[in-house]
């Protein structure tokens, strides 16, 4: 019953090595504790919490980057609860980059009043911690805790800043739906662990492979993926997305639209590719799981794109565009092939930059005009050419125009789907036709999406500024140097979007490193 000294010794040693892998998370935890306790100290309230939090994320990011560059990965840590493989490590780095960007954006736009800044930072750090655990989870218990840990602070984040009633409403909807979604996911987890008596993913996957897709497994997987799909905002669990994104501040919406989706997509990838890695002959994974997911993906992108047509609120429009992109991502995930994995990873990183750029641009618009509807950007280029051009760059990248990173991502993704269709075995003609039909739908969706992206561009570039509006900046906007910081961030993201669209190598390398875990 009780462990022997030798076991304890081994446990101790493995704990030590696990903790070393866990450095980024530890840095975040330290950050959370420091920020919370800081206010207890005399004069603690005068510390610039934003910078402090930024420093902790930076430390975590450096630790993660060093692990990626080190090139050796520990594998299972903490007795198999987590895994520190290449996939997780790369995702950790990317997620920390995303958080870093969000924090810089919040610094630049001064989202929070000074006295609540620490709360905001703590929630952000906490949510990020959850996401980091999400991409590393190797046990269903860990998965659940990680998802909740990423989700629960996010509910509160949606309410920032506290004075806005739409923020409260967004948070309300997010929390209630989120609780329900986590309930659904839990039910799926309970069915899976129950059927096989284990929550340890590798064992579970092996057991599924031996047992096949019968009712409890299918129900468990479906409910689990549905719960995760809520985070990724795929049809039919996408409805929270527009309301939450519209209600919350643009910075927070940017965080939810990028980092949160990334982590959920990573979980999808890990689950499906662990299954695929077993090469189960009996049930053709692309046909039984991939194609249905692909159909959901096609639905998701079509719904997102069509619903975005009539939107007049920029954040709501971007929310629907986010749903559409979740569709593209899910299509790549559904392919489950060795070419699709790096393609999806590339897409996710590219998506992080361009979508976050778009939300950052909306933040700029809000700071400059006090509004985030389509009318707010009317004739923007005549008054403020630089942000208007940068916003256009982000939108064009989301649309997938070369030579921007969005095109590189879309090209690879579509290429993977096409190859999946071509590589489909001849005895499954439905698979071949299925992938090609889905590809055609995705291509058509690209054309559809042009309409609403260009509608924003048109409002900014082609329509004259409203007559009689003062050229000076309007209400919320404060001193010009606040906007200056935002503009620098926008410029940085814009350069990133253009450069990584021309020179794919760094992102390719990153996605290939991550993909090697499963290939």
């Amino acid at each position, binding site marked *: 019953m009780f462990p022997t000294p030798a076991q304890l010794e081994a446990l101790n040693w493995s704990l030590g090595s696990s903790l070393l892998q866990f450095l980024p998370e530890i840095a975040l935890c330290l950050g959370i504790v420091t920020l919370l306790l800081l206010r207890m100290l005399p004069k603690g309230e005068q510390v610039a919490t934003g910078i402090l939090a930024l420093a902790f994320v930076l430390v975590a990011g450096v630790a993660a980057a060093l692990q990626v560059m080190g090139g050796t990965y520990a594998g299972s840590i903490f007795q198999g609860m987590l895994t520190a493989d290449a996939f997780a490590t790369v995702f950790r780095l990317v997620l920390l980059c995303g958080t870093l960007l969000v924090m810089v954006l919040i610094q630049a736009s001064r989202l929070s009043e000074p006295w609540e800044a620490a709360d905001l930072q703590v929630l952000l750090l906490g949510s990020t911690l959850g996401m980091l655990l999400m991409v590393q989870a190797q046990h269903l218990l860990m998965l659940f805790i990680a998802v909740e840990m990423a989700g629960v602070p996010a509910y509160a984040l949606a309410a920032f800043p506290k004075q806005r009633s739409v923020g409260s409403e967004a948070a309300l909807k997010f929390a209630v739906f989120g609780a329900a979604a986590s309930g659904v996911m839990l039910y799926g987890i309970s069915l899976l662990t129950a059927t096989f008596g284990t929550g340890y993913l590798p064992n579970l996957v092996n057991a599924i492979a031996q047992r096949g897709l019968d009712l409890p497994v299918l129900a468990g997987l479906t409910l689990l993926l549905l719960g995760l799909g809520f985070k990724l905002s795929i049809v039919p669990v996408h409805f929270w997305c527009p309301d939450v994104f519209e209600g919350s501040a643009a910075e927070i919406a940017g965080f939810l639209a990028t980092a949160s989706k990334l982590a959920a997509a990573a979980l999808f990838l890990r689950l499906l590719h662990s299954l695929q890695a077993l090469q189960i002959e009996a049930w053709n994974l692309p046909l039984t799981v991939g194609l249905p997911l692909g159909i959901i993906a096609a639905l998701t992108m079509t719904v997102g794109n069509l619903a975005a047509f009539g939107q007049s609120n920029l954040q709501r429009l971007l929310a629907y565009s986010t749903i559409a992109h979740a569709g593209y991502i899910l299509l790549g995930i559904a392919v489950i092939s060795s070419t699709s994995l790096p393609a999806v990873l590339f897409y996710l990183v590219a998506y992080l930059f361009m979508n976050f750029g778009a939300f950052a641009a909306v933040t700029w618009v809000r700071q400059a005009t006090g509004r985030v509807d389509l009318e707010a950007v009317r004739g923007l280029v005549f008054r403020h*050419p630089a942000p208007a051009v940068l916003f256009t760059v982000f939108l064009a990248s989301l649309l997938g125009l070369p*030579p921007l990173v969005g*095109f590189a991502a879309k090209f690879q993704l579509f290429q993977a789907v096409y190859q999946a269709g*071509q590589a489909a075995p001849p005895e499954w003609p439905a698979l071949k036709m299925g992938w090609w039909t889905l590809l055609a739908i995705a291509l058509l969706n690209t054309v559809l999406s*042009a*309409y609403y992206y260009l509608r924003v*561009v*048109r409002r900014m570039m082609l329509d004259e500024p409203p007559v009689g509006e003062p050229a000076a900046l309007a209400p919320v906007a404060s001193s010009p140097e606040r906007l200056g910081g935002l503009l620098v961030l926008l410029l940085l993201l814009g350069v990133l979007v253009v450069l990584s669209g021309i020179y*794919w190598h760094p992102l390719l390398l990153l996605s*290939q490193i991550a993909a090697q875990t499963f290939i």
Partner: protein
Amino acid sequence: MLEADLIWLTILIFLPTATALTLLLVPARAAEVMRWLAVFGAAGTLSVSLCVVVGYYLLLDSRLDANGRPLYSAWTRLDARADQAASDAAQPIPKALLSDDWIARRPWIEDFDIYYALGVDGIGLSLVVLTALITLTALMASWNIEQGVRGYLILVLLLETGVIGAFLALDFFLFYVFYELMLIPMFVLIGLWGGERRRYAAFKFVVYTLTGSVAILAALLAWHTVDVRDFVDQAEVQQRVRELARERHLSESDVDNQVRIHTFDLVTLSKVGRAVMLILSGQEHRLAARDHIAEQPVWNQVPNGPVKLFAPGVDVAAAIARLKAQPVCTPSFQYLVFALLFVGFAVKVPVVPLHSWLPDAHVEAPTPISMILAGILLKLGGYGILRLAVPLCPWAAAQLSLWIGLIGVVGIVYGALVAMGQTDFKKLLAYSSVSHMGFVILGLAAWSSGGTAQYWQWGVNGAVFQMLAHGITASALFFVVGVVYDRAHHRDLRRMGGLWEPMPLYCGFSAVLFFASMGLPGLCGFVGEFFVLLSAWHFSPALAVPAVLSVILTAGYLLWTWLRVFTGVNEATASFADLTPREAATLLPYVVLAILLGVLPFTLVLKWVDPAVTGWIANLAVLR
């Protein structure tokens, strides 16, 4: 070490971009400085393009062909040079890159076999020169753009980069990137500096073009999955085999069959297309491997002789088997991909059912943008069909050639008929563009082979010449409209007239351009149409007759327009000032070119276009 042609071509493409970036540094108030800077940048691009012409001419002149003629040597053809360059680079010890072969090839994104590959031949280069010239004149015609000068100039220059890059690209992916680069600049240029319904027109332009681009993207994806290992230099295949064997710890013979090579190289892909055509038309016994990297073509050889498409050292039987096992070698693939490519480019040409964006875009765009649109962008469509659609899927193109020809003729007649009914000067010219570009389609469609391939060659020569001639006359005529619009502030033909009295110089210049557009012998419009009609007659008299008759329609509406604008007495126009020096300087090159190209078509254009066309025909005409 960079070779000279890489440097020249890169400068040619990116000089406009560099100028655009420099414009960002000019202080906002100095609009005049910006205009001059942009004009200098465009003039620099034109000079560089002329330097490249000289270089290309020297290349052509440096070898004699089998008959002892200069310019026509098979070694100087684009695909021979491209093959040689690719092969040199693929050797285990890469050979020195040639500086004078006008092929530049550098890996860009190696994981996806994407190359920054540029190549010069007569077809592309003539259009590059045209582009540089029209952009320069369009910038000169932009002096009255007062609002947002900086943005306007930057967008025009970016557009020029995209177009020149597309004309020079030898890599499908690179072509697509440059091709798409034009979308947003054009959208903003039409939508921001255009007329009353400019936003509608800009949207329509984008939706049409983007639909076409997505079709091309689908074709791009399809072609990239084709295995081309028997068409590229075998040294590269060996290299891949070795790498794969090392990776998987297997012997080289085991992995030999697993090596796949994908490429976006247009020259290689068109070889695949030709091989597929032979297989699909039941002539696979003619397929053979080349003896040398750059082979003398089988032009003028025995009919039904071997067609040497595979790389030297390839086992032909195995290669054919491999090719047949691929989906590329099925009629459905060929039809589908050809349809995708053709529709994608037909939108740009525009071909008749897909043309309705053009009149709107032309009417709403400001004068210089109309010049660029008519003079350059439409040519990209024709160029795409010539360089991509037909060579990549020759089998489908041959099967459908009658239909394509029919589409061309419908465009010719429909455009002319609708143009007759227009009262808006610009709309009339837009429809005349539809009509004139129909000749390009007709010329390309006139498949003929064997001893009569000469007719098709005339057709293609005519098509290329027609693109150049239309580029010159259409841009010039749009400028002519712009001049009168600046003075009258309307484009209604019914309210014009009597311009010859106050504006004699303008009237004279316009007359030349109108007659050139009409196809009067001795002016540039005649040559292209004549060649095309000649080949069309041989291809199918049923198509040629309406096309010939439409020349009468063309003459009719153009003459009528000229009469309505210039003759008579009109109080309203009596006080108009004649051309300013700047306007005259803009129009003069067009007038001179319209005359010179009509009088000396061979010396000025065909001399270096025809060798390229000969190569193009030699590749395709032997297949049937």
